Every structure is written in structure tokens, then in C-alpha cells.
């Protein structure tokens, strides 16, 4: 029982990180139609933005976090201008390869800057443990789950209760009409990329103390975020959350109860099964075949 509680908490914490990565991926996809294969590198950069401010520059925690997120916002803007705008009119496959290519650049730029030696990012609640029903749980895992829940709440408020969020959704649904209505579509698209970069940044900062900060961490995260998105439903925010939590739990519980070698096969097996049986995922809208 104590084991199970511990595993569930760790699974939910990891799942929260995947969920945030998946949400960033989905927000970008809904608004711009871009299937961002560099999404995993966004999270990696988030972790290393933290490494830069907290470890290398040695800033105190709140300042370091703020600095890292400011770097990520800047990165989102840069990505919008340098990658999204030139590729935005290209076919799906060109965008896929283009974001993969830029992912290679990001990964190797990080390698050049930080080297291949992994870093350890310290949690604000480093070393603190919580005891629940006989189970000892790292406080960081609980904090990650709580912070993610808060963040999702804030995101919901932003998208549903603010003029900015409603304008973003209008652009996502129909950019041409939104433009005719006088919305500043380009600014809103740029903000979408900034928001995605910020979410990935937070995911990266939370992941840093759970994994070692390694420049190669982007690809596995991207694959998990894709699986989460398909399972939850492509383009659906609740789907990204549910899918992320499922993939995190499957990974942690699968490693413990099934086989640590095949733990990832559960998530990808579920993803392929969903694609074949229910490609719209759990929360996605029905894919209509009407012309």
C-alpha cells in the first residue's frame, strides 16, 4: 500500500510534466496547425534555462525561476519569427521535418553551451519528505502535481475568461474571420508560441530535480507528449492532461509492476491502439468523414 501511494505520486508528478508538455504542443497545434516536433526540445531548454540562471549564474530561487521563464518567453518569440513564420505555409510533412531540424539545432546548441555532462537542478523543497499512510513521498512530487493543477486552472481562466484568451481561441478556430474582425492575428499567434514556450519552461524547471538535466532529454519527452496527445485526443486540452497523467502513471507503475525494460511499450502500445481504434482519442471530437 505504501509502495503504491509512492508510485502513484511519482507517476502523477511525471505525468504532470508530460501533461504540460502536451498542453504546449496542443495549444500550438490548435492555433497554428503546426505539429511541433521540437516540443521536447522546448522542455529541455526550460530545464537548461534553469541551469543557466540557478546553477551557472547562481541566482537565488525566485529570481532564477523568473529569469529562466523570461528566457523561455524570449525563445518562444524567436521561434515564432525564425521557424514558424517561414514554414507556416508549408505542407504538414515539411513542417514536421522543419521542426525536427530546428530541434537538432537546439539540442546541439545546448550541447555546445552546457556540455554533455548532466547537471542537477535543485528543487525549492529539496530533500523534504512527506509521510502519508506509511509512505514516504518527496515533497517535490506533491508540489509538482499541485503547481500543475494551479497552472491548468490559470490557463483555463486565461482561455475562457479574458479577452486575450478568447481572441486566441477565435484565431485558433478561424484565423481569416478573426483577421476580418480586426484581431491582431500575428500578435496573437506570437503570443501562442510564447505561451507554449512558457509552459514547456515550467515543465522543464519541474522536471530538472526529478531527472538529471541532460541535453538529450528532449526526444523522450516529445515522444511521451505525442503519446499523451493521441491518447487524450489530438487538439483537446483536457485530453492532453488526461493523456499526460496516463502516460506518466503507465511509465512509473509499468516499470514497477510489469517490467522496467518494457515500461514505455505500454504508452506507445496504447497510443497505437488508440490511433487504430479511436483516433480521436478520449476527449477529441469525432473525426467527421462528411465532405
Amino acid at each position: 500500500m505504501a509502495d503504491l501511494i509512492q508510485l502513484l505520486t511519482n507517476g502523477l508528478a511525471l505525468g504532470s510534466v508530460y501533461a504540460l508538455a502536451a498542453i504546449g504542443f496542443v495549444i500550438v497545434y490548435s492555433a497554428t496547425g503546426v505539429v511541433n516536433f521540437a516540443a521536447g526540445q522546448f522542455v529541455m531548454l526550460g530545464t537548461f534555462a534553469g541551469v543557466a540562471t540557478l546553477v551557472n549564474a547562481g541566482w537565488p530561487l525566485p529570481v532564477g525561476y523568473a529569469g529562466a521563464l523570461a528566457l523561455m518567453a524570449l525563445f518562444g518569440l524567436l521561434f515564432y519569427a525564425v521557424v514558424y513564420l517561414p514554414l507556416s505555409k508549408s505542407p504538414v510533412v515539411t513542417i514536421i521535418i522543419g521542426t525536427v531540424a530546428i530541434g537538432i539545432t537546439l539540442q546541439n546548441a545546448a550541447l555546445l553551451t552546457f556540455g554533455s555532462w548532466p547537471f542537477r537542478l535543485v528543487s525549492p523543497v529539496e530533500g523534504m519528505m512527506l509521510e502519508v499512510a506509511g509512505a514516504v513521498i518527496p515533497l517535490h512530487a506533491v508540489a509538482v502535481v499541485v503547481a500543475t493543477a494551479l497552472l491548468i486552472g490559470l490557463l483555463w481562466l486565461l482561455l475562457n475568461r479574458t479577452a486575450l484568451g478568447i481572441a486566441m481561441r477565435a484565431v485558433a478556430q478561424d484565423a481569416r474571420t478573426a483577421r476580418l474582425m480586426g484581431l491582431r492575428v500575428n500578435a496573437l499567434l506570437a503570443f501562442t508560441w510564447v505561451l507554449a514556450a512558457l509552459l514547456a519552461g515550467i515543465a522543464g524547471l519541474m522536471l530538472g530535480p526529478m531527472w538529471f538535466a541532460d541535453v538529450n532529454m528532449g526526444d523522450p519527452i516529445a515522444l511521451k507528449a505525442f503519446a499523451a496527445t493521441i491518447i487524450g485526443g489530438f487538439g483537446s486540452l483536457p485530453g492532453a492532461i488526461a493523456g499526460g497523467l496516463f502516460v506518466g502513471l503507465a511509465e512509473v507503475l509499468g516499470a514497477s509492476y510489469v517490467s522496467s525494460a518494457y515500461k514505455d511499450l505500454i504508452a506507445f502500445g496504447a497510443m497505437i491502439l488508440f490511433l487504430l481504434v479511436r483516433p480521436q482519442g478520449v476527449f477529441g471530437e469525432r473525426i467527421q468523414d462528411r465532405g
Partner: protein
Amino acid sequence: MRSVLVLAALLLAGLALSFVVSEYTLRLLNMAVIAAVAVVGLNFAFGYAGLISLGHSAFVGLGAYGLAILTTKAGWSPWLAAIPAVAGTGLAAAALGYPLLRLKGHYLALATLGLNVSFGIVAANWIELTGGTNGIAQIPGLTLAGHRIEGERTFLWFGLAVLAVLGLAALAIHASRLGRAMMAVRDDETAAAMTGIDVTGVSVAAFVLSALYAAVAGCLFAVHVHFVSPDDFNVAHAITFLSMLIVGGEGSVAGAIVGAALLTFLPEWLRVLGEGYLAFFGLMMLAILVFLPTGIVGLARRWRRPVRPAASAPGGARPGVQP
């Protein structure tokens, strides 16, 4: 006819190079030829039928592992082992194709990506069969009429011969009923069905053809390197194959070969830039995608025919379907 000549020119260029370049360049040329076989195959699925596959290196891996296992564990000759390795890969593609190819666009891309990841996980963990992450070593090389196909130069001649046969076969398919049907399916599935084309059947055929070529590439890889491991067939390689096809020019056999050669050599040429060469490589790829959307073959075509034939009637200005 022109495409046969272009293919011949490319292969002869490879042959000529085999006499003048260094051992190291010969090795890269061999890698390029093996990749070219895989990419000419991928051209059936993506270039002709429009199926975005990020699982191509799993099929290369199935062929390579098939040959590796049959030669090292069962003691078969590599020639004999290649037959079930390639045929089995084709069967696997057919079995996967029917359910999978109902998906389109990025759904198919992610599904095939998931397949490739799953292949890697199985290959890394089914240790009794695959040797796990240690891979399978000491795969025997080929012998032809008493001569061992060993050494980079000899192997390159053999590889070019294989590429010539498969390239010609691809050109023949391109100009056949099946080739036209694949292109019709990519252009317009509904209109294709309306001419009596079995869209699913043709898509699966394209997928199986691409897997067969991939498996041959895998067999070549196994008998060239004498070693296979899961990392040789991961998603990064699948993405590289697709990049090669797009950079060379999708829909063209020559484009597939040029793309495979260029993206094999480009990272090596960029090594002079020092440690950051892969970062530069990514940016360069992005620039190629943005500025050369039809690839190098498309550029050559534009250069040859600078002005497109104008519409022959005023009605031509109407919104029509453009390639």
C-alpha cells in the same frame, strides 16, 4: 527515358568516384548507397502515395535483424537469409498497413513514429533473439562466385549494382499502372476511387514496396557493417530518410538518390565548423525546406525550364488544382 539516363549518370558518377577517393570517403559512399536504397523505397510511400511514414527505419531494422539472426543463430548463408528477411518485412508491412493506412497526415506520422519506437524497445529488450542493446556482431559478409564482397571499394560496386537494379525497378513501377494509381491516390483520393482505383489496396501496395526496399537496405547494412544494434534503426534515422527524400525532391528516384548522398555527406563536410556542426546542420535543413520546397530535383527542373507553359486559354486563370 530521361530518368533512366539520370539514374545511369548518378550510378556512373559513384563508380568513377570509387577509383579516386579515400577509404573514408568510400565508406561514406557505401552509407549513402545503402540509405539511397531505403529512400528510393520511401519514395513509393511518401513521394508517390503521399503516406507520411516516420517508421521507415523499423523496416530497415527488420530486414537487418532478420538477416543477422538467420546468419548468426541459424548459420544460414547471407544470400539465403536475405530472402525471408525481406519477404517477412514485406508481410509485416502488409499486416500493419491495412489498419494503419486509414490514418492520414500527422496521425499517420505519429502512428508510424510510435511503431518505430516500439520496434526499438523490443529490439533492445528481447535479448535472447536480438542481443539487446549489445546488438548482434560477426554477421558474415557476402561471397559471389568464390569472391568475397569485402572492403569498401568492392562493396561499393556491389551496392551500386543493387541500387541500379532497384532504381530501374522503381522507374518501371513509376511508369506503370500501379505507379500512376499511387500518384492519383496522392493527388485526389476521391477522384482516384472514382476511376476504379482501390485506394486502400494501392496505399498498402506502396507501403509494402517501401518496406521491401527498406529491408534490402537493412540486409546491405548488416553485411557491410557486420553488426546491428537498436540504435542503428531509431526514429532519428527514420526522420533522416524522410529528410533525404524531401531535400532531394520527393516523387523522383533521382531525387531520392541525390538527397541520400547529400545528407550523408553534408554533416561530414560541416565537421570543419567544429563542435557546433550539427546545430548548423539543423539550420541549413530549415533553410533548404523554406527556400527549396521542391528539393534539389525541383531546382534542376526549374533551371531547365525557366518558364512554365502558360495557360492556353483565358479560362486557365480560374482556380484549379495545382500540384
